[in-house]
Each structure stands twice: as C-alpha cells, then as structure tokens.
C-alpha cells in the first residue's frame, strides 16, 4: 500500500504494509539508520523519534497512523535545544556503546523544547523511557543540565 509520510520536512512515498511499525519504514525504506531497534515493545526508547514534536516510540507506531504528522528523526533534530544537547553530549563524553544515544538525544531535545529549565525530577521523568544499558545516566543528567544552562546564556 502506498503511503505518504512527512519525514524531516520532506514528503516521502513508501509502499509498505500499513501495519508496519514506523521504525522499520524509517530504517528499511528511507534508510535513516540513526533510529535504533532495541526491544520492539516500547520498553527501551532506542527507536524514539518526534511526532509533531512529541517523543514517540516508533517501534510500536503503525506507519498508517502517522501519515498526517511531522516526523523528525535524529538525523534532523535541529534548533538551539538540539545543538546545545548534542554539544553537551560530546563535551561530557556521554556515550559509551552509543546505541541508545540517538533516542536519548531526541528525548532530551524534546524536553528542553518543552521545558527550557527542567528540574532534576523533570529530567528523570522525561528520560525514564530511554534505557541506557551502559548506564550513562549520570552524564545524561549532567549534559541536560549543562545544555539548559547554555540556552539561558
């Protein structure tokens, strides 16, 4: 079935089973590989993308439910919040294996877009859906705080 998707600002036509999870359309059809597969049941957050600015688990999102939305993947997160987050991620050496970090960066960017100065509790709440098996959590917290501080200045 042919569907029309708006991904990273561009409209793309894909011919897929409408029940296909968005994750596999992004990866297998559009070859945007930054978004990862970790569990397939919305438990780990490696597949996080933004749908209309909201962090969403693409592994359980049927592609035909998001045809009229704006989908943003790690390849196109931009703006001051994304830049601040990614700069802090590099400066604080957040990633270890790195496999979850696309999802972490998307969730953290969405957090700062919604709440520019999050409390520690708000950070924990916003990032609770993103598992890091290497447990880089202490640095994720620090990097979000640092990015938030940068944005203020």
């Amino acid at each position, binding site marked *: 079935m042919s569907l029309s998707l708006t991904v990273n600002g561009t409209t793309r036509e894909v011919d*897929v*089973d409408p029940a*296909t*999870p968005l994750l*596999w359309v992004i*990866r*297998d*059809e*559009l*070859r945007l*590989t*930054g*978004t*990862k*597969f*970790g*569990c*397939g*049941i919305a*438990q*780990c957050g*490696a597949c996080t993308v933004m749908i209309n600015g909201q962090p969403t688990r693409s592994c359980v999102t049927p592609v035909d439910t998001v045809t009229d939305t704006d989908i943003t*993947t*790690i*390849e196109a997160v931009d703006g001051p919040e994304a830049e601040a987050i*990614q700069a802090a*991620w*590099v*400066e604080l*050496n*957040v*990633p*270890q*294996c*790195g*496999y*979850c*970090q*696309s999802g972490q*960066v998307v969730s953290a960017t969405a957090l700062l877009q919604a709440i520019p100065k999050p409390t520690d509790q708000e*950070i*924990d*709440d916003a*990032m*609770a859906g*993103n*598992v*890091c*098996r*290497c*447990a*880089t*959590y*202490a*640095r*994720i*917290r620090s990097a979000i705080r640092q990015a938030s501080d940068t944005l203020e200045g």
Partner: protein
Amino acid sequence: MTLIKPTRRAFLASTAGLVIAVALPQARRAAAQAQGEQNFAPDAFIRIAPDNTVTVLIKHLEMGQGANTGLASLVAEELDADWAQMRAESAPADTALYTNFAFGIQGVGGSTGLANSYTQMRKAGAAARAMLVEAAAREWGVDASAITVEAGTLTGPDGQTGTFGDFAEAALDSEVPADPALKDPSEFKLIGQKLTRLDSPGKSDGTSEFTIDIYLDGMETVAILHPPKFGATVASVNDTAALEIPGVIRVAQIPTGVAVYGTNTYAAFQGRDALEVEWDESGAETRSSAEMAQVWAEAARGDAREVEASGDVDAAFANAATTHEAEFVFPFLAHAPLEPLDGVIQLSDGEAEVWMGSQLQTVDHGTLAGVLQMDQANVALNTVYAGGSFGRRAQPASDFAAELANVAAAAGPGAYKLLWTRENDIRGGNYRPLTVHHLKGALDAEGKIIGWQNTIANQSIIAGSPFEQMMQDGLDPTSYEGSTQMPYDWPAHRVSWARMESQVPVLWWRAVGHTHTAYSTETFLDELLEMGGQDQVQGRLDLLSAEAGRDRAVLERVADMAGWSGPGTGDRRMGIALHESFGSYVAMIAEVEDRDGHPFTTKVWCAVDCGFAVNPDVVISQMEGGIGFGLGTTLYNEITIEQGGRVRQSNFDQYRMMRIYDMPEVEVAIVNSENDPSGVGEPGLPPIAPAMANAWRSLTGATPRRLPLQDAGV
C-alpha cells in the same frame, strides 16, 4: 539510498598507493617481528593522510569501553599529534598483526584491551614520528635531531614548519626505527588528560554505524526462531503460513533453528511469528532454575574440590567462640546488550565478506570460514561498532558467527542481515551461571576472625568450550575468581568449588566470577566484623595483608571521600565494599535509603586504582557504568527457567532495565599507584552490589541472600 560497503580488498588496494604513509616493507616487518614477541608493524596501525588526518586502526572491538579513544591516544601521545587530527577505525581480522598479547588471538575481554596495547601502540606512534621527522630532515637538509614536533606540527631549526600531511608521502622512504624510544611518563601531554572520545560526535548525532545500520544491495533480512528449551531441536516445520506473508522470501532450517528471509525486517519478523514448528524436546533440559538452585545448594553444603587453603580450618572452627554461616543464591543473568546480536554477510562464489561486532575476531573468522568451507583468506571479517556486549559477543564457540554463516549457506549467494529480536536475546542462553555460595566464619572470644570457608557451586564457563585449555588441573577459575586470592590475612581459610552440570549454556558476563564472589565475600565479611564489634572500614584495614597496599589505598581513600564514621543511624545508611578484579582495585561506599520497602541508592563514592590512568575520563565513565549496571542487575534481574525447561522472561517488560531514576549520584577518585595500566571495563561492577547490600543491612538488619532483591521480596 543504498550504502555500498567497500570490500576489504578494495580498501587495501586504495590505501597502499594513496594514504599509507608509514609503510613497512615485508622483509623489514619480518625482521622487526623477529626481534620481539610483540609485533612491531606501525603501518598496520597508523595511516597518515595528505589531508593531515591520522587514522589509528584499532585491533579491539569498540563496544563502549573506549577502545578507539584509548588506543588512539597512545599513538597520538608518542606521535606528538594534535588530538583534533586523530581518527580511529576498526582493524580487519588478522591474527598475526592484531593479536591481543594477553590471549594470543585477536580479541578482547577480561579488561585487557588497553593494558596489552600500552607499549605496542606507543611504539607505533613513536616510529611514525621518527619517520616523519626523518622525511622533514631530508627535505629541509637539516639534522633530524634539530627538528621538534608539537601538536602535529614539525618545526625546523630555521623556523621551517610542516604538518604530518606535508610529509605523509615522503615518510614512506624513511627508515623504520627498530625500537623507537618512548617518552617518560612525565613528558605525557595527552595521556592522563581528559580527551573528547573519538566516537562521541557520531554517537550523539546518529551517524555512527553499527551492524544493524548496514544495508547492502539486494540484502535480505533474516529472523530466526530458536527452540523453546535448551537442548531441543527442530522436528518438523510447517512454513505455509509464513510463506504467504508478503515480503517473506524463503524459510530454511539451519542447525540452530528455523530462519525466515524477508525483503524487509517487518516481513521477516511476521514470517517468524507465523511459523508452525514441532520441536524434538527429548534431549532438552527440563529442570527449573529453582530445582537447579536446590541441587547447587546441596553441593555447596557438601564436600567440594578444594581450590585454595591456608592454616588449619577445621581447628579454627572447632576452637571458635562463635561461628556464622550463610548461603547465597545468584540467578542466571542475560547480558542484554541494547543492540541485539546481528551480522551482515555477502556471500558470492568462493568468497564471503562479513560485518559484525566481533569481539573474538580470530575465533569468529575461523568459524565463518569453517562453516562456509572456504579458505580463511577468502573470508573477510570487518569489525563494526557493537551496541554493547558485556561479554555476550565474546563467544568461545562463535555461535552467532556460525549461525550467520549457516543462514547464508542455506540460501546461497546473496547478501543477508541476520537480526535477533530481544526475545531471541533474553531466551538465548549463554547466561551468567546460576551460582550458590555457602560461607562459614569463625570468631574467637575477642571477635577476631580466625576461620573462613567458602564453597561455590556452579557450571563451568570454559569446560567443554574451545577455551578449555584455560582450565587449571580440572578447575575453572572463572567459576570462583574473587573468592580466592583475597587481600585479607585469614589465619585459616578454605575455598572449594563444586562443578555443576546442566544444558543451559553459560558465558562470561561483565566481571564474570567476580559478579557473585564480591557480593558473598564482602557482605559476609561485613556481618562478621559487625558480630566482632568492629568498624567495617577499620576492621578491613586491620585484616589486609602486608602485600595489600593497593587495596589499603583505595579503601582509605573512599572512606575519606565519604567521610566514613560507620554506617550511620539515620534514614540514610552507608555500606562499604572492596574488591580487586582484572588487576584493578576498587572500593565503594554506597549511601542507601528505604523507599517504600525498597533500597534506593542515593550516592556512591568510588576509589579506583587501575595503575596509570591513560584516559581518566574513560576510567570514570566505566566506574559510573559498572555501578549502574551492577545496581540494576542486583535490584531487578534474573532469568527464571520454568519447570519443563522454558525461560520465563522474554523482553524488557519482564527483564527490567535500570533506568535514569534508579541512578545514584557518583563520585569517582582515581588513585594513581603508578603501576602499569590495568583494565576498567569490568572492575567497576563487583563492589557496588555488596556496598549497597551492606547499607541495606544497616537499615533492615538483614543481608539479602538471594538475588535479585526484588525476587527476595525486598
């Protein structure tokens, strides 16, 4: 948008003429190799390009531990490079060039990566530096000794300057120094400093490439269905429904299960779910893990094989004023790297090329060639970033590589990506062994420990595996490491091991035997000290042997950091633990409070002595990661085998992952003992669970003796 990967052959051809600037002719390489047991082949490790980038070929898998940054920083230091010009790339599989000197094969594990590369990579960097200097000396007509190098710039006596790129090609004609001089550590500029990890940018913007990200032309994605019990096999397959799913190309039975090939991932997964398979369970393991734990516990209470002893243990217990006894049960554990096991293979007539997060390249390479019945020279194995391993990708029998090769062999020439699901992973065996410890302690009338006994029952990881030669006189040290060679000076002690058998495949899991031995020994010791009326820190210090200076230093340091004055009396209590593993010494203090009946760790202080800390920030990050990984496991994780033999858990909804809100604040101090560098990937894990449990005992009066805590009703 299809990514065409260059073949290894094309890669070598292009680099030989174009960018290898530091090359070593074969004859000279052979001579250099003959001079020492460590290969000296700077061209195998360093490529200096005319664009002034320096690429270091990394012989070990980068799986998050910082191999790329660590090994590149050793080269950069001796090369006097600018850190910004450094790059890292995974080396191809080539055992002769890329051996891990700790093992004698290409591969990494046991926290050996940095340590075994420390001199080798520095020498490579120093050789390349000398060759660049010689090239500049020729061009400028000056003496090489008059040239200085700093931050990637060569400067001549008359103010001439040049970059490494300027001399990249001319350096090809330079003599390769046989044994280049290395810097004195006091001259280090990059080693010992915080550096930006080379893999941070790509891992922060989604551009880093993992195995799952490789898409070849015409590639099929393959899902696999494994038997539901360990030791079961396929009896019959009905693939009618699977083949009706659009996008499913074929179904094939392979030795490890049933493979479904799809034009895309969703089709392959759906096809797998539609398979109807009859299993032959006649040879399967049917015992539950609870039943096994009872058998193991009985063995741990009985006579087992003595592996270490001192003094007269029986007399110590006979003369004791007080004795104490405890049994600990540690569950099977899955590694659960966030990237499920995966591999890509391009099979053509008589040749194959493979991409995977290979941790033991020599073993995987040989296995791929063996299954494909090809000469190893016709199989290229490319190592790709791994989304975590924690031991899972270090497979002595190369099970995954063999499965990947079988997937390709069953289908014929073509390109295939074998992608496990999380369910394949959690139910895939190769667990941290189920283990039972039985400890006894003897105290004299003054409360002094006079006897210590520990009997451990578990399966051997290496017996029956291709690594069986690591067995020592029938003993598998990975089963009980950490319970022996303890730093404490017991008047009398005995450690014994009972080898258990089951069909559940077991594997090393981050910190291996230390995952359980640190817990039982450091919580039991804590109880004995309390029974003897001693302080947990001072009591340990008093017990430490004269040779245990490094243990003493980290223990004193962490007590100082946390302001230790006992476990405390308020809502937050402190617990301490000390444990050496893989040559690194780590002490931790955990501060814990009771939140609705569950332990919540608010803060962890950690002091680590890993010898000379090459990349201090990587050391700190590995301590943080070890703490998080260890805490989550202790709180939540176990693999339960049901009566009949099925694994209960299948995904993260039941095998619960540590999350950000579980993570304590962590403060790490590096105690530099100026010993040679030792590893940090594993040693940060063992002390956290006993430190946390000791604090919890202070709050509740009891040490959890059955892990995870959640299972123990905590």
